[in-house]
């Protein structure tokens, strides 16, 4: 065990830090879920990142990456958060589909889809859930019927983040007549293809963060299927592993928020409206963020050493989603009567971040489902 960065890692940190200092926009961008302008501003930022070859540092160079290891990825994420660089509008692609493509895709698919994903030229949405298939994802009813070397897609997808403005979606479809985990395939479709209708859905913060997608006889080539026909469930679970395990929520954002919370405490403590006992929660928020960071560093070290991520990824998802809510509730308590007001542009948006945190225990597999996974696959408790 060696808990110090190597000189090469320190040099890499300085390289990314200095690049970000030169390139991160001085003014925060409008949120990417709120308007086409905000979305495109974030796509432009992805193009700027690509000019520095920072799109997705862990990917192989031939697909738009730098071939770096997971420790370097964590360093990149830390510097990215420190610099308050814009949110990644391409996160569904680069953090979820990308790693899955690298594992299961053909060379031709990787060449076709990864570079524009890394550069922000093509931004991806996820199309898994359906009105009747949420936590019970194996209940998916959308179909992919084979017609020569094409698939004809039909169905109703919902809660698709980014789908309103994105270019592509990856969805779970089943061969007509199949049931449950069998017969499903993971298929890509352009969101502007004939037969695709996207209806925005407002989130509780008023943003159009997600959408329903109606597919009516949408034709895509067989090339758009990731992995074998009927292997969709297995591939989908691998994607979910990346989502819960390591990529989706890197620790840096929570560490940044915990540090901001500590500053808020320093500003607010002593105010007659502030309970001195809130210091315990401020310390707790810091501990949680640090514990999450230490855990992810440990996971990264073990993955570099040849281990694989198993069902323990579900503990990550529970931990970050719960710490996020606790941290933001503490901030609201410190703000007291000011907490309910919408933030001025440029100020730390505690109330909106709190509303966003409330989604954490629901998306990427509800925390109830995660607890089932932990109980059954980590602890070995019986399914029924």
């Amino acid at each position, binding site marked *: *065990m*060696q*808990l*110090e*960065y*190597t000189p090469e890692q320190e040099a890499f*940190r300085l390289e990314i830090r200095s690049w970000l200092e030169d390139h991160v926009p001085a003014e925060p961008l409008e949120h990417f879920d709120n308007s086409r302008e905000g979305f495109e501003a974030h796509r432009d930022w992805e193009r700027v990142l690509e000019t520095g070859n920072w799109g997705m540092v862990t990917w192989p160079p031939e697909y738009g990456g730098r071939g770096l290891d997971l420790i370097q990825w964590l*360093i990149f*994420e*830390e*510097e990215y*958060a*420190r610099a308050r660089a814009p949110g990644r509008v391409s996160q569904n692609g680069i953090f979820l589909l990308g790693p899955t493509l690298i594992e299961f895709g053909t060379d031709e698919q990787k060449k076709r889809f990864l570079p524009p994903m890394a550069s922000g030229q093509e931004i991806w949405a996820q199309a898994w859930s359906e009105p009747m298939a949420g936590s019970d994802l194996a209940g998916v009813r959308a179909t992919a019927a084979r017609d020569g070397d094409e698939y004809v897609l039909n169905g109703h997808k919902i809660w698709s983040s980014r789908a309103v403005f994105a270019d592509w979606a990856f969805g779970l479809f089943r061969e007509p007549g199949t049931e449950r985990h069998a017969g499903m395939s993971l298929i890509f479709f352009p969101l502007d293809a004939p037969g695709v209708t996207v209806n925005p859905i407002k989130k509780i913060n008023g943003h159009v963060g997600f959408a329903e997608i109606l597919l009516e006889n949408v034709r895509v080539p067989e090339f758009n299927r990731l992995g074998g026909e009927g292997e969709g469930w297995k591939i989908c679970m691998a994607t979910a592993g990346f989502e819960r395990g390591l990529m989706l929520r890197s*620790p*840096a*954002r929570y*560490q*940044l928020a*915990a*540090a901001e919370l*500590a500053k808020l405490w*320093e500003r607010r403590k002593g105010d007659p409206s502030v309970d001195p006992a809130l*210091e*315990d929660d*401020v*310390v707790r928020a*810091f*501990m*949680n963020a*640090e*514990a*999450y*960071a*230490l*855990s992810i*560093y*440990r996971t*990264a*070290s*073990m993955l570099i*050493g040849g281990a694989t991520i198993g069902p*323990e990824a579900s*503990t*990550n998802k*529970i*931990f970050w989603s719960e710490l996020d809510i606790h941290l933001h509730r503490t901030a609201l308590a410190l703000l007291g009567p000011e907490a309910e007001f919408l933030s001025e542009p440029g100020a730390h948006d505690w109330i909106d971040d709190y509303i966003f945190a409330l989604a954490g225990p629901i998306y990427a597999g509800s925390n*109830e489902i*995660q*607890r*089932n996974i*932990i*109980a*059954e696959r*980590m*602890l*070995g*408790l*019986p*399914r*029924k």
Partner: protein
Amino acid sequence: MDFSLSEEQQMFAETARQLFADKSGADQWREQMRSGEARIEARWSAIAENGFTTLLLPENEGGLGLSELDFALVAEQAGYAALPDPLVESAGVAAPMLAQLAPGHDLLARPDASIAIQHPANAAVADADISAAIILHDAGTAYLARPDQVGLSRRESIDPFRRLFNVEWDKQQATELGRADWDLALDRGALFAAAQGLGIAQRCVDLAVAYAKERQQFGKPIGTYQAVKHHLASAQTAIEFVRPVVLAAAARIGDRDLVAQSLISHAKIVALEAADNAARAAIQVHGAMGYSWEVDVHLFLKRSLALTNSWGTPYFHRQRIAKRMATCPIGPSHTFDREPQNA
């Protein structure tokens, strides 16, 4: 940056796990409680023969010259087994202090000699009666005395295997060892209490899982019910975010700075919370059986209860973390910092 244990470290921990599983099981606890024996000599000598009592001592003192990280792995297993013996405080805190203050002391050459320690953070001295010597505290100075040179009065603990004593002593009857590093002793005590907490927590989950697979109600194992599953999944989730903190604290204790102290304090707080939560979840899953003396979960609940306020209360440890937060940079990229003036 490499946050993984070596193969040797993993094998060492496995040796400890096996030894404690063989020698500190439910049958042995019950027999020891029935007989009231202070120490099971066969177990203690096996512990000493495996080198666990001399692990932290330098090689020129006949020790293994290993690190706090290695000892933390043993302490975790001691927690997992609710080990009754004075291994953790003697070998983890007292012996290294004696080696520092009195190099070449003849007690250091006796791996089976346990050493008790009086520390201002604790209310009593553990295992004082069965120790070969007690390190005593007076205004920052350490003294050494044999149990027969002091007055011992037992204070019964809720934990049947904690032998706690008030010590009445007189400097005339003790040997002065000089100014001691009581802060380092506290850090070691807290770190190894955290490591034990980690083991206690995992044992409680394991006991409850085994019971939930067997126990049938409404025609099926209670472990099939989500209400039961989610108690244990939450307990396991907490454990997963304690282990890296304990390991990092153990790896950094030698830095002796505020960052290291904050990590140790973090480990101490969350490990004993995880242990307490897991113990209470395990009792709940066991139902009325869990509230009985027949099921072993109560031993882990009590050990956790005792360790929570030993070697610094949660409040004491929270204050150390708050101090780091107020005086050192925090946030992304600062996780593995040294305290600035020591960097």
